């Protein structure tokens, strides 16, 4: 197994050019939305709106402006599959279409997926969706095909500001730690890393440098594995089954004959 590879996305240097979105679409030959007819979201420069089956990269535009518009800032963040070390989608996938590669990344095999959509509901980040052309669930593959031939993913290759950086997780974490330190020293006390350490789902192989709370970026502050509910859910269901069984047995055994007469004169 090769060393774990991933993305480190420094949101503070993202300029919202969407080169990553375009590079991703080009490499993976993903179709245009709505037959190429431009639809505007109408509330932002962000017309991609969300990650789905034909958008595996999405630059989020978060506008933080007060009512009087005197001050303000744009938060820009190129969102992508987090390639979780403990992957919720891979865990629940009932066809094993979702696999873990030698680069520690998570990839959906489009010739195996049958579109049950369990992974879509399981992903805590809302990354996966059905690709309308293949009718299978799809998401970022961290350019598995490029990685296998020793190339870096299309999005990070295209990123003009190095907001998206690709490399071994070890190296990326060092780089990210230094950057957080730099920002903190410069007075940006809110700078922190999201998903770099092991606390969140064992670690995210695509982690972020954020300068606000995760919720502001549309990221869950506390993502969890779906199987957390498996044992309690099953135990309560068994309890329900026992109670129902008990009620059934008692009532089929003790059938009041009087009741029959009473109801049928």
């Amino acid at each position, binding site marked *: 197994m090769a060393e774990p590879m991933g993305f480190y996305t420094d949101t503070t240097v993202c300029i919202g050019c969407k080169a990553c979105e375009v590079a991703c679409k080009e490499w993976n030959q993903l179709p245009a939305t709505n037959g190429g007819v431009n639809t505007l979201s109408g509330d932002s420069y962000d017309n991609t709106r*969300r*990650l789905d089956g034909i958008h595996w990269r999405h630059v989020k535009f978060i506008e933080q402006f007060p009512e009087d518009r005197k001050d303000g800032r744009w938060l820009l963040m190129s969102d992508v599959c987090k390639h979780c070390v403990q992957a*919720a989608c891979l*865990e*629940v*996938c*009932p*066809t*094993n*279409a979702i696999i873990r590669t030698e680069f520690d990344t998570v990839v959906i095999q489009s010739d*195996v*997926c*049958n*579109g*049950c*959509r*369990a992974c*879509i*509901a*399981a*992903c*805590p*980040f*809302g990354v996966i*969706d*059905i690709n309308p052309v293949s*009718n*299978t669930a799809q998401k970022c593959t961290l350019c598995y095909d490029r990685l296998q031939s020793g190339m870096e993913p299309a999005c990070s290759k295209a990123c003009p500001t190095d907001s998206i950086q690709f490399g071994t997780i070890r190296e990326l974490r060092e780089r990210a730690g230094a950057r957080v330190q730099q920002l903190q020293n410069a007075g940006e006390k809110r700078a922190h890393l999201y998903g770099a350490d092991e606390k969140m789902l064992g670690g995210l192989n695509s982690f972020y440098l954020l300068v606000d709370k995760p*919720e*502001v970026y*549309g990221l*869950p*502050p506390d*993502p*969890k594995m*779906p*199987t957390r*509910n*498996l044992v*309690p*859910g*099953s135990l*309560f*269901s068994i309890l*329900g*089954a026992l*109670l*129902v*069984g008990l*009620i*059934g*047995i008692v*009532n*089929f*055994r003790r*059938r*009041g*004959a009087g*009741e*029959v007469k009473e109801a049928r004169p």
Partner: protein
Amino acid sequence: MNAVPSSTWFSASPEWGWLVVLYLFLGSLAGGCYFLAALIDLVGRAEDRPLARLGYYAAFTCLVIGGILLMFDLTRPERFWHLLLQSHTFRPMFKYWSPMSIGSWALVTFGAFAFISFLGVLAEDGLLSWRAARHMRPPGLLARVIAVIGGLLGLYVAGYTGVLLAVTNRPIWSDTPLLGMLFVVSAASMSAAFMILLARRSARTAPGIFALHRIDAWVLALELLVLIALVISLGPVARAWLNAWGLLLFFGVIVAGVLAPLALYWRRDWLGERNMTTAAALVLAGGFILRLVIVFSAEGVGV
């Protein structure tokens, strides 16, 4: 900004829609009817056998329709077998920690039992002249084994869907561990109601129908408790039901589907002859609306 009650708010919808709601309804009926029929076979009296046969017919029919619906809910239905067989290695596909994976196997196994019992009741009703099939009906050891295993599988099929919804990261579904229990209990009440309606129609009324009616009352009371516990266990997430879905849950399920049938049970002479059938119809409708609300109310939630 964006104070959300749960981290589940950030997940995306799988768009499980009407086909899934119908499957949840039919699957619950299939499992519940088989379970009740098996109980009649195991602990009931011989004169209730016609009722049990009705249950087995209903179970098999509902399961077949439900299974087909489920298959067509896949966006690639022709690949349904990938759920059972690994498409590359051709080894059995089984993840004991994934409810959808266990559920697929449970459906197939339960389907086999439902089919065996279906053949048995066909033979018993004289619609199938196959001697061996008669052995699948009680009395007899084989019949008892089939009833025990099939009945348990029936309950499993009725309840696993609730656990499946909980083993996700969707709002409401995964914010409570009680959905599976709710589905099991509701499946029992719906199935008892369904069998009452069927028995009334087919004029094969057996005395056991009153036992079913009584079971319904008990299970409905239990269902009410589970529903209350579920809303409490949701905590701040329950605010996701402060909308039309919550109203539908309250009036369609709690009032019309639980409280009204319970009232009809305690006041047996309110509607005279039609008392029992009205109560049963209400329970059945309530069970459907419950599944509808659970599936669809999670759709619009999120950031």
